[in-house]
């Protein structure tokens, strides 16, 4: 198992950490994707904050897309119902819990915020339970 872990996972993580550090150092803002997205969408008239949020998200999407390896295997035929339920649950959950993998898991833990440490443990456990049940019943996500 251990020999199957690619070191690129570590490099990718470090890049994410550098990005979050830059946003904090230069702009004084937390690189929490859900927070940035929701504030951009639901508070679009805050022109002072809107533009950097838009710039960050455009960079995120385009940067990821342009760097994608050509042999990247797209998942096909995944259940649309699961995708819809997933989006709803992630949306509600990250809104009421004030953060996702990046905001709580990367930035919040970096700041040693107790809320983020608790949230990260809970969403990891919840994700593990979900995938365990999902793969037992559907064979998906296995």
């Amino acid at each position, binding site marked *: 198992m251990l020999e199957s872990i690619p*070191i690129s*996972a*570590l*490099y*990718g*993580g*470090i890049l*994410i*950490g*550098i*990005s*979050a*550090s830059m946003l904090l*150092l*230069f*702009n*004084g803002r*937390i690189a929490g*994707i859900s927070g940035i*997205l929701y504030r951009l969408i*639901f508070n679009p008239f805050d022109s002072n904050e809107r533009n*950097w949020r838009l*710039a*960050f998200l*455009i*960079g*995120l*999407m385009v*940067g*990821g*897309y342009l760097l994608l390896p050509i042999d990247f295997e*797209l*998942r096909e035929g995944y259940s*649309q119902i699961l995708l*819809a*339920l*997933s*989006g*709803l*649950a*992630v*949306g509600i*959950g990250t*809104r*009421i819990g004030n953060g996702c*993998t990046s905001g709580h*898991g*990367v930035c919040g833990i970096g700041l040693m*915020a*107790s809320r983020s440490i*608790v949230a990260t443990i*809970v*969403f990891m456990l919840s*994700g*593990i339970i979900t*995938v*365990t049940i999902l*793969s037992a019943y559907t064979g998906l*996500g*296995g």
Partner: protein
Amino acid sequence: MQRLITALIAGIIFGAGLVVSEMVNPVKVQGFLNIFGNWDPSLILVMGGAVVVTLISSRFILRRVAPMFTDSFELPVSTIIDRRLILGAVLFGLGWGLSGYCPGPGLVNALINPNEAIVFIPALLIGAWIGKGVSA
């Protein structure tokens, strides 16, 4: 202008990190959460690598009076661990497991796998809109 450029560059690096770490691949993420099945532990390194960097950098950055290109740091102030936080994290984990997408990779997949993103992203925004009104 400076803060737009820094935000853009930070976004690009974040997107690069998601691709290099394979977080953009929902099958990989589900494999990571599948600890009782054919577990793929590599995303521990992603989280670990990112957190080590932010743990160290935050110490130094927050010694500054202000960020370089804005007037002040805008950090979450709440320290209350309440039902909203827990319920939110439970729901987020549920949704994350169901598709393998959290918000960042979900967004990047608008360009990579639009067939899935066209369902996931609108559902995400509807969920966030519902979540705004939920008092747990």
